[in-house]
């Protein structure tokens, strides 16, 4: 009764709601009667009755919730609040937040361990996993994971916990991306294994077979080392599944692509309990793939498996159907009996319900949210869609993961000779930073995202007219994530204060003046720390058309390694310890190591 009243109140509230729900993650009760939907747009968790498909209640949580875990008895939900660095513990019957638990920077995925006393939380910006002690409510220990730790899956018995990563490791300049699946022994709360994924970056959700001996991870295989001229050859992104586990004896990457019809950005994964089917959401092409699990595993075990990774005909062996769903499907959830598959359509504010026997969407749960859609929301759908690129191979969001970056440098131009290698910049806080491109060649976002994208990226059709304006609206509105290094009230640590003094200095330590154009704050000025001018800071390469580099914004620069226009600096330190020998990129060679550390501590706060 209480839940019903909560549900009615919730429905009333939604009728006047002004925020898009943006369903992102799902969990289901053991009896299959309640589906819990994490809504990253409205900062809430919804409880849905799976019989009536009605939203029964909601709980407001922290900012931008992204992941949910449910206790086996269904009494508690745990939701990561990615912008608050906390986890909300929710009484599932009351849909009431009972307490908030601390986590690392940008907690995203979450799972419970075998004892049900420890939560494992993937922290995207601190590149680690929090082991949260539920009894004490503390972030008791941090386990080293890979870069951009984001999604967590536990084996059915909770004994093993797997963590995937959306960013590849920061490697040497112009080397293939490498990521990992971090396997945690939850009994001992230690990392027991790292499953290395070569040529992979952008690993999303995972699923495990019931016996835990096989795992699947949705992944991207970016082809960033070769020129983007090869879009038509399928050589920009491979949309894949990583198959791992004891039954495989390692890891094999299996393609999902079809020639000229790519299921772009595989995101959510599920395996039926009878292990006959696997399901994968393709968040760029708005569909769910249904796979014959046995045939997939047979292909993964075949002697040819290693070379199948780039074989666009391989998926015909195991992909049975591609079921259209809503916009930007994210995570998926099978009902306990395996008869229904729920799909979180993030940009539709709906849940598609697939009848697994019929392999078709049979109903839709409408979660609410404003209508008609605003320009920003329409633009967001375009941003995440792969419909504009050749063969639906990729969309803007492939490289700008969740509106940010992918941690790689790319050979974007059509020359085919490695001219103008560029680091992928984050799109946060881009609004007032025109011109665009590292060489400042595009005066506005309409130019950047319109004809240029069509010609150099998509090789198919581009954004035009109202679509283009909507897309630009969205990009300009991409929010800036909270900075984790600023103290409350605008105060600074002593190191940050010393660093700020270095950033602001006009004379060298020996008393001689620093030329105006080499003072940090001259170029890195204003609210986004860019004067929007192009400058030669001595980092141009012979392979660059021009040594002039568009001054990048520095907001949240701490998150976006690698650095410099081509991504050659792996860390902030390297910008000056390696790539500034002649003091052209600010005067830094008179600084001691501790002073350089102070400068970096200040830059982390921007």
């Amino acid at each position: 009764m209480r839940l019903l009243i909560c549900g009615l109140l919730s429905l009333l509230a939604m009728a006047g709601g002004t925020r898009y729900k943006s369903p992102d993650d799902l969990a289901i009760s053991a009896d299959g009667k309640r589906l819990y939907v994490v809504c990253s747009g409205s900062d809430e968790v919804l409880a849905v009755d799976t019989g009536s498909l009605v939203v029964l209640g909601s709980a407001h949580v922290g900012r931008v919730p992204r992941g949910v875990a449910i206790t086996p008895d269904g009494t508690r939900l745990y939701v990561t609040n990615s912008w608050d660095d906390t986890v909300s513990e929710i009484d599932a019957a009351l849909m009431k937040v009972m307490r908030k638990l601390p986590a690392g920077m940008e907690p995203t995925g979450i799972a419970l361990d075998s004892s049900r006393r420890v939560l494992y939380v993937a922290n995207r910006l601190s590149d680690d996993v929090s082991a949260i002690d539920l009894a004490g409510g503390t972030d008791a220990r941090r386990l080293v994971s890979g870069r951009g730790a984001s999604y967590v899956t536990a084996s059915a018995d909770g004994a093993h916990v797997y963590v995937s990563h959306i960013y590849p490791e920061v490697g040497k300049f112009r080397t293939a991306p490498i990521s990992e699946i971090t396997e945690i022994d939850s009994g001992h709360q230690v990392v027991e294994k790292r499953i290395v994924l070569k040529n992979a970056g952008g690993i999303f959700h995972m699923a495990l077979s019931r016996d835990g001996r096989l795992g699947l991870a949705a992944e991207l295989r970016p082809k960033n080392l070769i020129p983007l001229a090869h879009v038509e050859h399928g050589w920009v992104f491979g949309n894949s599944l990583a198959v791992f586990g004891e039954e495989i004896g390692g890891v094999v990457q299996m393609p999902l692509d079809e020639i000229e019809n790519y299921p772009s950005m595989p995101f959510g994964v599920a395996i039926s309990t009878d292990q006959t089917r696997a399901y994968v959401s393709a968040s760029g092409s708005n569909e769910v793939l249904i796979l014959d699990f046995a045939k997939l595993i047979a292909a993964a075990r075949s002697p040819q498996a290693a070379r199948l990774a780039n074989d666009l005909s391989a998926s015909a062996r195991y992909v049975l159907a591609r079921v259209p769903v809503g916009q930007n499907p994210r995570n998926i959830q099978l009902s306990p009996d395996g008869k229904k598959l729920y799909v979180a359509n993030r940009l539709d504010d709906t849940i598609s319900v697939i009848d697994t026997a019929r392999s078709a969407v049979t109903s839709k749960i409408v979660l609410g949210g404003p209508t008609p859609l605003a320009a920003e929301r329409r633009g967001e759908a375009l941003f995440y869609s792969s419909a504009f690129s050749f063969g639906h191979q990729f969309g803007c969001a492939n490289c700008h993961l969740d509106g940010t970056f992918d941690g790689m440098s790319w050979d974007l131009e059509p020359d085919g000779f490695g001219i103008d290698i560029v680091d992928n910049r984050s799109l946060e806080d881009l609004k007032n930073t025109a011109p665009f491109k590292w060489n400042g060649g595009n005066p506005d976002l309409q130019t950047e995202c319109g004809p240029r994208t069509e010609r150099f990226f998509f090789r198919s059709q581009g954004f035009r007219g109202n679509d283009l304006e909507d897309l630009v609206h969205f990009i300009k509105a991409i929010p800036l994530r909270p900075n984790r290094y600023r103290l409350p009230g605008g105060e600074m640590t002593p190191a940050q204060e010393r660093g700020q003094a270095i950033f602001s200095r006009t004379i060298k330590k020996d008393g001689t003046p620093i030329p105006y154009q080499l003072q940090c704050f001259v170029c890195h000025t204003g609210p986004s720390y860019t004067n929007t001018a192009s400058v030669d800071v001595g980092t141009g390469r012979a392979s660059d058309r021009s040594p002039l580099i568009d001054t990048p914004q520095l907001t949240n620069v701490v998150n976006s390694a690698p650095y410099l226009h081509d991504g050659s600096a792996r860390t902030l330190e390297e910008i000056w310890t390696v790539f500034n020998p002649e003091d052209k990129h600010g005067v830094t060679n008179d600084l001691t190591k501790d002073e350089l550390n102070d400068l970096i501590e200040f830059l982390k706060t921007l």
Partner: protein
Amino acid sequence: MKTALLLSLTLTATAADLPHFRWQNFTVENGLPDNRVYCVAVDGDKVWAGTDNGLALYEAGKWKTFSVADGLTHRAVLSLALDKRTHDLWIATMGGLTRYSAGRFDAYTQLTSGLPNDVVYSVAVQGDFVWIATAAGGARLNTRTRQWNIYNERNTPMYEIWTYSVSPAEDKVYYAVWGGGILEFDVKTERWKDYNDPDGETELVLFKDQGLIHEITTSVSYVKGILWAATYFGASRYDGRNWRNFLDKDSGLPSNFLNQVKALDGDHAWFSTDKGLAYYDGERWATYRPALETHAPEMLVRDREGGVTRVPVESAPAYHYTFGVDFQGNDIWVATAKGVSHGIRNIPGETNP
């Protein structure tokens, strides 16, 4: 005759109270990458050894080796520190700091990180902090925020920046500064204090227990509120009020040239010297080594009155020049200049295989 028998029984009783070991030695012939072993670290059933030519892991009776090609920042591994919560291993090398975590190596150098200098002599873990001693000062890495703090002559009483060893605890952190005595960091107040040899940098000992024995400190070990220090000219113990110093002439130390001191508590400590491995139980001393002249296995016991007895033993550590130790239950592992030694403790009443 009666007196002689009594003396013999007394000596035997004295020796019996001190740890006896059966020594198992490992060299390149057993799979080590080099015989010059600078450090060892025990992780449960596993043992790590840092050598002049890479890192080695002893597991299930076999040595596995890791090199620069695997991700070490330098071939010469000088110090190891295990994070007991995560089982990550921090590796101090002559070319930077490396973290090993479940098969993965992460490098920290002065070019790529906030590390003050690539010559890293010592590393230690305390909670979420990694403490580091380098040739250009000390450093602390906060593993949660990734903030680096550097400690040198500009923000501490350090007049010499060649830090050689670090020993952190919840309340205090101590640095052995080679040629600069000892630095103490108060965790609560974040203030520094230095301890120096009251006799200056000379090798004289004018007033024996007046302060630190010598400025050339090589190792510190702070356990249960007691600081132990090793120098190239003797050892010291400091309880926060009084100093007590140890020299080879008036203690059981086999040499005043010490590479490491590792304390078990306020009364028990192990000393790695150039002339053998020494143990002190608060009153008595034992030295374990191949005899300097004959190289025959040797265990010397010095009783509280200063009497020295040679105890018959059948094995000894691989070499008398020792760099450091770590403990595995009742057993001890020793890094020597000619291999790694596993001291398997003889427990009275138990039979060893």
